[in-house]
Every structure is written in C-alpha cells, then in structure tokens.
C-alpha cells in the first residue's frame, strides 16, 4: 500500500479549514460510492503520458463523466472517454449553482475529483467551492490541496502513479 498522507506541508494557509489527507484505496472507494460524480481533468495530464493513461483508465473503470479543463480535452479525443471541454473557473461557478443541470443535463453533481491541475490554480478554484457549495471535492493530485474536502499529500511523480494504480484497483 502506498502511503500518500505523510507530507501535508503547504506554503500558506487559506484559513482554519484544511482538507483531510486521504489514502488512495479510501479515495477509490469514495469515488465508486458517489451518486453523481464528475472527474475534472486539468491540462497537466498532457505533460505526462503515464498520468494521462491512468486518467483515462479511472474515467473508464468508474464510468465517470469527464470535465476536461484547459486544453486537456486534446489528450482524450478518441480515447473512449465521455469528456467535454469546459473552463475550470466557469465549471466551479456552475457547481455552486443548485439550478445547473450538469454537463449532460442530468442535474447537479455531488462529488468531484480533481486530477491534472496546476497546484495553486486548483486550490484557488476549490476555495470557492469550499465556502459556497456543499459539494464533496476529492483531490488526487500529487500535491496537498488545502481547499479540497479530501486530498492526497505531497508526493513524487513516481509515487503518484503508484497511488493512482492503487486507487484504480479500488474503484
């Protein structure tokens, strides 16, 4: 089992509320249990093939709809994943709106999973969700993200890949 919760160092705090460090197996199970999950994939997945591969695998295995932010969609064309491009700042705005019908018109989500984002950017965007929505946000990035509900700690790229593999096993 990979331990990803040892290092939760942050450069700065956003206040008192801090995300719960979570292990990959637990995260995997939570994702599987979610009623209306959304995998939000950032453009950093394009910088690492291993990461992209696992991203696609997660989406497929858990049958997760994908919100592809930045230009990450370009890595998922013809991958068989149900992905739609959306700007992450807009998406976070809609996620706070109980009237939003989701990317598929089926209604608002209850859990979002963040992967492949720029660290400070995703933390910032999640800060809005933290205070202005009831959404559960699970960060499976390789950085500790304070403003998520749950997050991996700070890990190396290698450990990150292992952790994602373990997460996939638990889906």
């Amino acid at each position: 089992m990979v331990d990803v919760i040892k290092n939760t160092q942050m450069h700065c705090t956003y206040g008192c509320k801090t995300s719960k460090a979570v292990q990959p197996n637990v995260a995997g199970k939570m994702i599987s249990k979610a009623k209306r999950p959304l995998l939000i994939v950032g453009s950093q997945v394009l910088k690492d093939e291993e990461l992209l591969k696992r991203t696609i695998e997660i989406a497929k295995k858990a049958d997760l709809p994908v919100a592809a932010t930045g230009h990450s969609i370009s890595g998922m064309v013809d991958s068989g994943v149900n992905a739609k491009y959306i700007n992450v700042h807009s998406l976070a705005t809609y996620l706070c709106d109980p009237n939003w019908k989701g990317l598929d018109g089926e209604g608002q989500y209850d859990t979002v999973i963040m992967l492949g984002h720029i660290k400070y950017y995703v933390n910032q965007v999640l800060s809005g969700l933290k205070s202005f929505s009831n959404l559960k946000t699970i960060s499976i990035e390789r950085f500790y993200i304070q403003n998520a509900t749950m997050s991996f700690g700070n890990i190396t790229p290698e450990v990150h890949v292992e952790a994602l593999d373990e997460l996939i096993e638990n889906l």
Partner: protein
Amino acid sequence: MSELTTGSFSIDDLENVQITINNIVGAIEKEAESSDVEMGPTVKPGVSSLRDWDHNVLDRYNAVYTPMCDQCCYCTFGPCDLSGNKEGACGIDLAGHNAREFMLRVITGAAAHSGHGRHLLHHLIGLYGKDHPLDVGATNIIAPNVQLVTGVQPKTLGDLDDVLSYVEEQITQLLAAVHMGQEGAAIDFESKALHGGMIDHVGMEISDIAQISCLEFPKADEEPPLADIGMGCIDSSKPTLIVIGHNVAAITDIIDYMDEKGLNETMELGGLCCTALDMTRYKAEDRTAPQAKIVGTLAKELKTIRSGIPDVIVVDEQCIRADVLEEASRLMIPVITTNDKVMYGLKDRSNDDIEDIIEDLTTGKEKGALMFDYEKLGELAPRLTIMMSEIRKQKGIKALPEEGDLKAIADTCVHCGACEVACPDSLPISEAFTRLSEGDLTKFEWIHDKCIACGRCEYACPKDIDVVDVIEKCSQSLISEEVGKVRAGRGPISDPEIREEGVNLVLGTTPGIVALVGCSNYPDGTKDLYTIADEMLRRNYIVVVSGCSAMDLGMYKNEDGLTLYEQYPSRFRSGGLMNTGSCVSNSHITGAVIKVAAIFAQKNISGNYEEIADYTLNRVGAVGVAWGAYSQKAASIGTGCNRLGVPVILGPHGSKYRRALISKPYEEDKWNVFDARDGSEMKIPAAPDYLLTTAETVEEMMPMLAKSCIRPSDNNMGRMIKLTHYIELTQKYLGVMPDDWHKFVRTETDLPLAKREDLLKILEAEHGWEIDWKRKKILSGPAMKSDVSAQPTNLKRLCKEA
C-alpha cells in the same frame, strides 16, 4: 473680460497677487452651448451614480468568489472565521468580505496610478506651468476617459489638476467603504469596485497625457522608433546605471545630463519596468532611436541585481522589489530613492552638496540616499556610476558563484522539496540540483525561462542555498543572448485611425481587438505572449500591448531574427500591432474603444458613461489579457475595462484576485437585450460569457479570445469571420469542435464559407435544424434573428417607444 477662461492672470492694483481661476461655474454648460457639446447624465459620477449600470451587468456576469483566506483580520473584533460563508463579529459574511477585499485591491491599483499621476502633475506643472497645452497627436478627443467620466475636455496641464482632485475624492470615498461597519452587500462592493476601476482609467490617462504633452513622447505615432531590450544588451564592461520603477519624472534629468556631457558611450543606462519604457519614449517624438536600454520587467529585477552588473541603482515608484537596498548593498551598489512612496529609511540628501553625498556613498558610509531634487539627481547618478564602477572593480566585488563551485553547491541540496513547495510555480528545483550534481546545467537553464526570480525558494531552503544565483549562473549563455527590440510607446490611437477602422470593428469584419497588458511573470517566459500575438495577428485581429507585456513581446524572435514589432505595422487596423506605452498607457486602449463610439457612432461621450459602456458591451469586440501573476494594478485596469463592457482574461495566477465575473450561458433569460429602435426584446449570443475570468493554458485561451469578440452587432460577414476563427482555434488548440458554435449561428451566411455545407449537415443531424438543401438555407433552428440594423442595448431608457 468676456474672454475670461480658466487660467491665471494678474491685476494691476493688486501687486504680487496672481489670480487663478480654477473653474468657472457654468463654463462647461456654456461651452456645451457654444460648441454644441452635449452632456450626458453622469458628469463626475459619485459612488452610486452608475450603480444601476453595474447591477444590470452584474445580473448577467455574477461575482464569483474564490477566497485567498476565509478569515477576516481587518479590525480588533477579529480575527473572524468566515468559512462556509459565516458572518464575522461585525456581521459581514465571506462573500461580502471577499468583495471588499477585491475592491480594496482595485482602489490600491487605482491609487498607485493616480498617485503617480499626482506626482507627475506637480512636477510637470512646476516645470512647464499650468497653462502648458496638452498635445497627444492627431485627435480632437485629447482625453477620452476624462471626458467620458467627468465631461471635462482638458486643454492644459492645469485642467488636469481639478480632474485629479475628483479622482482622489472618489478613491477616498471608496476606501472609506472598506471600513468596518460600512457596506453589507457583496453586490454593492462590486459596484464600488467597478467605480474604482473606472476611476483608475481616468487617473492613468491624466498621467500619460501629461507626460506625453511635456516630455516629447511619440504622439499617436504610427511609427515610433525601436528600442533595445534584454539583459544581454547591456555592455557590462561599462559603468552601468540601472533605474527601476514606473515614474520617469526623476529620470529625465539623468538622460539630459548624460546627453549634455556626452556620456552615452562612456556608460550604460538601463531600466527595469515601466520607467524603462518611458525612458525610450522621452524625446522620441521625432523618432530618434533612444539611447537608454530596457533591461526587462519586474521578473528581471532580482536577477539584474544579483548579476552584480549595476554600479548604481535609482528607484522611483511602483513594482520595485522591496529588498532592492538590502540586495544591492551586499554587492556595494548604492541605491538612490527619489519618491516619497519608496524611501527605504534612507537619509534625505536633497539639500546636501553633491560632493558630500558622493563622499558618503563611495566610501560606503551610507548605503544609499534619498534625493528629491531631480536636477541634482541628474548629475549625481551618472557621476556616481562612473566612480562606483572603478571602486567596485578595485574591491573585486564578486556576484554569483563561480562555475567551478556549482557542483559543490548542488551537492549540499538534501532534496527535501521545501523550495518546490515555496515556488509559486512548483518548478522542479530538486531535480535540477540532481542534474547539476551530475554536471548537467540544462535543467536549470530550462527553469531560468520559467522562473520569475521571486526568491521564495531561498528562504525555504534549510541549507541556505542561493537558488536564484544558481539558476542565473547556469543560464549565463542564455542570458547573454537575451536581446530584442521593442517599439517605443506610441501613445493614443489617432482619430483618423479610428475613423477608418471603427466600422469594421462594429460590424465584426475586423474580428476584434486583443489587448495584452499587465505584468510579466509568465511561467513560460515570453513565449506564451508571442504565441498569442502571432496567432491573432495572422488572423487579422488588432493587437494592442502595453507595459511589461510590451517588453516581453519584444524578447521573442522568428526564424529570421525578427520580433513581431518588426513584422507587423504599428497602426490601429486589422493585423496591426501597437505598443501604447507604459502601464498608464493602458488608458489609451479604453480610450480607443471610447473613441469608436464617439467618432464612428457619433455618440456624445461627455459625462455619458453608461451609454458608451452599453455600446461597447454590445458592439465592440475587444478583449483584454493579463497573463502573468500580477500586482493590484491589473485588478484596477481590468475592472475599469469591465465597467466599460470589455471582458478580460487572466492567467491562472489571476484566480488569486479572488473574484471573477462569470455568466451562466444556460440561464437563457439573461441573454436578452432591447432593440433600441422600438424597445422590443431580442435574443443575443452568450458572448462574451464572462467579464473577468481565468484561463488555464494559452491553448485554452485561444478559442476563448475568438469567442469573446463575438457581439450582437456583427453583420453576417463579421459573424462568419469570428465564427471561423472560433472554430479553427478550438480545433487547432483543443483538437475538437467547440460544442456551442451553433448557438452563434443566426443564418446560413453566418457560417464559415469553406465549411458551410458540412456545418449545415451537423445542424440538421445533431441539432435538428431544418435546412432547405436546394437553396442551402436554414429554415428553422436558430434562436436568434439576423438583423444587422438592430440596435442592441441593455438600457431601456435609450429605446424609442414601440
């Protein structure tokens, strides 16, 4: 006395008394009568005067908060925990507090610009007098922002004084609202933020037209000279004087002294940040190439000092690293401060003898000096530079580590990763040290281009490694090649240019204006900006740049060694690339937009803000980009654009302004306006779909830019052109068709010609539109009508009765 105007005069029987008439009550009205200048409803608007417009806009573009901190520590009731949108001890909630925080950033930026303007104006009036005429080139609208907001058409330096007092009054009113126990509603803090942004453009405009008029800057010049830029363009073997900041007032005397004494070959004069830009504008009205060199942007400040090349540093105000004195004095570089905004605790030597000051600085008795006498500064700084160069050589001042020591330094790294946590862009410093230990410098070279040299890594390092020094040392050969060209700031857009281009912009046949503004600090150096500008220029967008963006754009060259400045004309027209100038020259970008309404649409602009903003929002496809991490000034510049109806995209660091303005395209009732011809409602496209937002990557931003320029007023040709770019850019950078392209189609002639048939098929198959395939016409489907003569407006009051 019937020719009495504002200005100064003397009266014989009152000896030694000169009377200044600052303002003639009724003068504006009188002038209006005599010259048919109409006045709009909001002359010198107060904090609430344009609130209806703000609420109108905010109803569609909602404030979106992403707090930097969910606490408030403003007053001693606190600190208060506002997480989960709780209320603090004073009753404010997180949304309200964040709106307040954003507003505070905006007025801080506005105060920086108008404080700069006030300093300049005092200085220039002192030199040239209140009656010095304003001249900014071929335009009848000398100060579009000033006129739009205050109704004043300034003709002399003195006329600006009163407008600036209005600006200061408004800023004070807004700062007052920051106080505990004032505004309770987030939406009204938003309105106040928008007010502050608008005021900022007035302040910037005053600053720039004052200096253009007095300092022989290019005046709406379509071919301003090129200047050298880059750390590589300084000849470090010569005595080097480096100036840093934003206010050229203190520096012109240095340039004059160097000219007069023939020192231009003897020593180097380089600048960082906007002072550098304005140095290249100084006396460039006649298109002579500037002697002064631009070293670079804020991101180059620490690297420049650490290089040890400067022999003397002169700072003025804004965007100056707070540790300049500390860093410089370690390398025995005296620092001269020249502005009360930045004094570094240094002794005021304004009234001292130059020889005494030189004595104290050359002997190291003092680390620097405060000098408010600019004539004295003009002599002091160059003389001191030449002396310090010799002294520093003799002392053998050593900057940066020796190349031979790099490996040893790398070996001390324990790879704890603290530097990477501290790095604003999470750069892979640990890996670079591993490689450096192996003798490979290239990873640090790679980092150099992404690093903004903020120095946080050094404070985080438990082994006290001077990481910035290592990065810089590893990149010496790269740095020596950092040379480019920047076009000196041209100032405003001229009336003839607007007259020619206005129609294309409003009908959409010129697909839009893209303004690249704000600070550098792009994690991908200068390349991102080049990519954006190059792509959009090829597509015939008008590209306008200013400030640090203008600098960075000059740092990247094509295969033929040419910068974009050398490839594209500096004219306000389709495919034109213009540098307006320094930070305060951003006002010329909004100025150009205002002039489109004034000149092309013949709108009255005096005190008529709401109508012009409405016109812009609905008809002028302009979009601003501030890509780097940035100070508070981008917040005010961008917010000023927003109130005027111009959307702005920020880079990902921009999310830390904590507030965006984002619409919900799925709220269909928000995408209606009135047709001013009869007051009927008309559907409009969901574009721009934000007023202030962020993009994750340059690739994502490309299609966003194209979509942001779509406007209800586009004619079919215009819409076709814009849609073509939107679709092509989405395909090129995201690899897919945009999924909302069909929402912008009103009729088959809106469709890109080359793909028309394919697109019609998609509309039929995927969206259920009815097509008359014989005539290749759309029979049903579009949500909007195509009616080029419609007059879209958000303002019921502008509508004729049906």
